[in-house]
């Protein structure tokens, strides 16, 4: 082996802690990148394969009522491959606990098997034409602990219909099971989907010979023209009362799934880059310090006739080896991990099939990425090799000037400082560069550690803000159909209410120029006690007499600003669409809605005094008492929401844990490396102090004090840095459905500080050995290169 390589290997052996800690980051970066890229691809493939097998539709149209003939007529539109009618309606489900509100979507299956959105039987059999049987969506079935042969009892149009569960199925439409766009979190034990025969559905819902939904498959070669086809469909079906038409990309389950997979990719790329960047920064710092301390050796190499390239390569190989070790171990880990994670996701998403492939291209990309990072950071770190002259090997380093530091001139302060602290401060100020670099390392650690700690409190904050400040009602009741205001009085007779408000909630499509979005517009009384609208800067907004208040997220989607007129398109066949002025933009962290004065909203529907639900506070048994009351659709209590939120938190606790772990690894790696570098550079200095008669304890105490002071300063800088990182994290994570509030609890700052200090202590303990092993002779042999 080349002697320079021997030297390199021994150099690595001497700094194995650093080598390992940086390699771990590279390993993690590569493993995360390769395995999650593969997971994402495998998920896409599995999902699309599932769609193919079940013939997932391209367009879904909800109508008031449509006869079979009208559906058949759709084939006259060019590009339509298949169109199918079905009945789909949400009804309450009778369950043992009268306080529990469970709803199911009853969906009819066509007589012939196959067709669009065909169900995928996981176990059990098919539903029978005669006899009351049903097939239940697996997530719901599992969440409620059902068994084949159990009876479930939907409550349809005032009657109970006990049905035998004969099958457990999966559906491409409900891979991601949520009731509607307004449900913020999946709650599979509160909402499910059950499939029944067409005959049964038509008879119980009163839809003989007709349907309320059309599913449509478009020929592949016409898919690019889908918007035109949808327009044609809407036009043709207009007289059947098109409530809304959705294309696949806007389909709730599909779009949530795609969002999940996309965010998986985004997150894994972001984490990979973060790890690589931090690794590159540490490599860069480490090599530049090594080169600086090796100045004389480099001079000798040059004097011996080594050229710049060989010397530069000698040091760059350090980082290249890190990249190599990281890549090899990363690849070995990532293949089984990608399989395990794909499996986990598929299980989590309830997809009853599994496609797993190894995509070697990601391994190639991953290796390229890590090598490029390592080589570049190595070259940048070692580049000062070029500036070292061979004659430098002869010339000893100029002694550091030990002049007075500026603080000494401020006598009133300086005189108060004890001798040992004076020494600490002198050391720091005389080596500003080294102190600054340790300080920045600690600041960076603080910032990076803060993000996951902050993220773990985000959901709780968001929930508290939404249900504690933005909307404060205890119950949110929806009627099965629009009612007259009198219903509020009737409700008050049924239950003991502390306070009640009517609400009108109607879906509209809001259009601003070319931008549009379907949302629920909520009408509330002008003096609503339950909603607190505030501008993003925190000022209160009152419900205007006319005009609409948009949630901030909605305003962004629509590109609408205060004063803009937006078109409010209703889904009723005979009512004209109207323009409404935007009067305010409110903060809303969960969901996106628009809010109006209730009477104004009614005018849009050409109605007066219409209510679709009620908001109320009550200590009564609201759910139980309203259970069998006619026209009561859904009773949602904040407690229910809280419970499903807690359940949701359970599912994300692991990813939070993983994020914290990653933050911790990064943080520790930074602090460890900067501390080790800064202490090993000073071994000579410490040896000299030993020669002067300091004992090991005194030196250790001095170093500890220096580090404590620098840690304190580093954390001070780290606080704004962490804040900035949290803000950008939040911007990256906010989606259409929720925007994350940047509220950083004092706890977050404190816990981050404690973790950072912990890392510093551990890193220092690791270097303590070096100080205790100090050899007095090293000071005397200090000229050895």
């Amino acid at each position: 082996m080349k002697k320079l390589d021997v030297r390199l290997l021994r150099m690595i052996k001497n700094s194995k802690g650093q080598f390992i800690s940086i390699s771990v980051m590279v390993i993690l970066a590569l493993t995360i990148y390769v395995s999650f890229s593969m997971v994402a691809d495998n998920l896409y493939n599995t999902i699309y394969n599932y769609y193919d097998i079940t013939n997932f539709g391209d367009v879904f149209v909800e109508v008031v009522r449509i006869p079979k003939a009208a559906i058949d007529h759709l084939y006259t539109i060019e590009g339509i491959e298949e169109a199918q009618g079905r009945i789909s309606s949400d009804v309450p489900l009778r369950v043992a606990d009268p306080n529990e509100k469970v709803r199911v979507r009853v969906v009819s299956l066509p007589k012939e098997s196959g067709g669009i959105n065909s169900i995928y039987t996981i176990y059990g059999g098919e539903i029978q034409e005669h006899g009351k049987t049903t097939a239940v969506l697996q997530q719901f079935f599992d969440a409620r602990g059902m068994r084949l042969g159990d009876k479930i009892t939907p409550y349809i149009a005032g009657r109970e219909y006990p049905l035998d569960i004969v099958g457990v199925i999966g559906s491409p439409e409900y891979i991601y099971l949520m009731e509607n766009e307004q449900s913020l979190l999946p709650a599979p034990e509160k909402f499910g989907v059950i499939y029944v025969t067409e005959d049964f559905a038509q008879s119980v819902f009163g839809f003989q010979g007709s349907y309320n939904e059309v599913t449509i498959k478009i020929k592949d070669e016409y898919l690019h023209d889908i918007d035109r086809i949808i327009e044609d469909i809407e036009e043709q079906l207009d007289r059947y009362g098109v409530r809304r038409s959705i294309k696949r990309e806007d389909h709730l389950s599909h779009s949530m799934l795609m969002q999940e997979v996309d965010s998986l990719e985004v997150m894994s790329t972001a984490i990979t880059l973060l790890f690589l960047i931090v690794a590159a920064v540490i490599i860069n710092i480490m090599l530049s310090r090594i080169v600086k301390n090796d100045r004389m050796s480099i001079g000798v190499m040059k004097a011996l006739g080594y050229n710049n390239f060989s010397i530069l390569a000698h040091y760059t190989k350090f980082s290249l080896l890190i990249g190599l070790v990281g890549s090899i171990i990363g690849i070995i880990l990532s293949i089984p991990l990608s399989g395990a994670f794909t499996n986990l996701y598929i299980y989590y998403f309830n997809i009853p099939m599994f496609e797993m492939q190894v995509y070697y291209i990601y391994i190639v990309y991953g290796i390229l990425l890590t090598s490029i990072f390592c080589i570049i950071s190595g070259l940048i770190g070692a580049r000062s090799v070029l500036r070292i002259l061979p004659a430098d090997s002869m010339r000893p380093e100029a002694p550091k000037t030990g002049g007075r530091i500026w603080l000494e001139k401020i006598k009133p302060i300086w005189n108060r400082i004890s001798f040992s602290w004076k020494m600490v401060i002198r050391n720091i100020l005389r080596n500003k560069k080294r102190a600054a670099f340790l300080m920045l390392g600690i600041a960076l650690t603080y910032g990076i550690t803060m993000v996951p700690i902050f993220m773990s409190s985000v959901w709780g904050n968001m929930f508290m803000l939404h249900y504690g400040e933005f909307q404060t009602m205890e119950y949110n009741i929806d009627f099965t159909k629009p009612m007259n205001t009198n219903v509020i009085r009737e409700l008050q007779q049924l239950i003991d209410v502390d306070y009640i408000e009517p609400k009108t909630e109607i879906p509209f499509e809001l259009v601003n120029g070319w931008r549009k979005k379907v949302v629920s517009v909520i009408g509330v009384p002008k003096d609503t006690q339950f909603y607190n609208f505030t501008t993003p800067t925190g000022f209160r907004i009152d419900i205007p007499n006319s005009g609409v208040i948009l949630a901030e997220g909605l305003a962004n989607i629509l590109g609408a600003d205060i004063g803009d007129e937006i078109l409010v398109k209703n889904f009723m066949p005979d009512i004209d669409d109207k323009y409404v002025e935007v009067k305010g933009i409110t903060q809303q962290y969960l969901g996106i809605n628009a809010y109006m004065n209730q009477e104004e909203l009614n005018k849009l529907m050409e109605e007066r005094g219409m209510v679709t639900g009620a908001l109320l506070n009550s200590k009564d048994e609201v759910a139980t008492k309203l259970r069998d009351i006619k026209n009561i659709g859904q009773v949602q209590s904040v407690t229910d929401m809280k419970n499903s939120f807690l359940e949701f938190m359970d599912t994300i606790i692991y990813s939070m844990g993983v994020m914290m772990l990653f933050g911790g690894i990064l943080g520790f790696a930074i602090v460890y490396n900067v501390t080790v570098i800064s202490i090993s550079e000073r071994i000579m200095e410490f040896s000299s102090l030993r020669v002067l008669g300091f004992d090991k304890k005194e030196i250790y105490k001095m170093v500890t004090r220096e580090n404590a002071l620098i840690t304190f300063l580093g954390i001070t800088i780290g606080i704004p840095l962490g804040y900035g990182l949290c803000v950008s994290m939040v911007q990256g994570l906010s989606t259409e459905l929720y925007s994350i509030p940047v509220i950083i609890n004092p706890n977050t700052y404190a816990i981050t500080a404690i973790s950072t200090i912990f890392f510093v202590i551990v890193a220092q303990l690791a270097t303590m050995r070096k100080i205790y092993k100090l050899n007095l002779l090293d000071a005397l042999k200090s000229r050895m290169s």
Partner: protein
Amino acid sequence: MLKNDVLIKVDNVSKLYQMGEVTVAALKEVSLDIYQGEFIVILGPSGSGKSTLLNILGGMDLPSEGKVFMEDEDITNYNDKKLTVYRREKVGFVFQFYNLMANLTARENVELATEICKNALNIDDVLGAVGLSDRKDHFPAQLSGGEQQRVAIARAVAKNPYLLLCDEPTGALDFQTGIKILSLLKKINQDFKKTVVIITHNMPIGEMADRVIKVRSGEIIEMKVNDSPIPPERIEW
């Protein structure tokens, strides 16, 4: 001695250092011929420009003015690449503080130098010649100063250079050890037929040289051929 055989010709060399406002002249129009196989001692007080001269001879530094010829080739015209080859093939350095690589053994330190040379000598022979056959697997930290300097000499000699340049080779050593190193250098000069240039501020060392060159403030003030150099063992200071 083959007086006519000039190995290196230094012609009117000056070296100026710009230190802010002031210009320091480390060498002022120095001219000098070094002959094949000579043992030269350059004497002068600290700061007189000895190292600067040695560095220029060794291709580690370029003069501000003047020329240096090595076997009729002007090395001051060399680019970086050619200078590197020059250092690699033609000269060997011995430093005051030995400057061994701490994490390479004695033998590996020598190999580090030879593995890039074309005409390297047998490493074990050279290590034997400097009397370190049984210490060759030791690391520098396990060797005494004199032993380290012997490794450094072996490292310089094993390259089989034309010229051995030693900058204060005994400067960090005690008297006894210093004498041993000087004897070794003399032996190398005789047995391996190498031209040796030693710089020192230590006057008595001049007595062992074929020629003594005294410098002061960047100028050669005296050049004396020593007709009867004494063996290093008889030097006293």
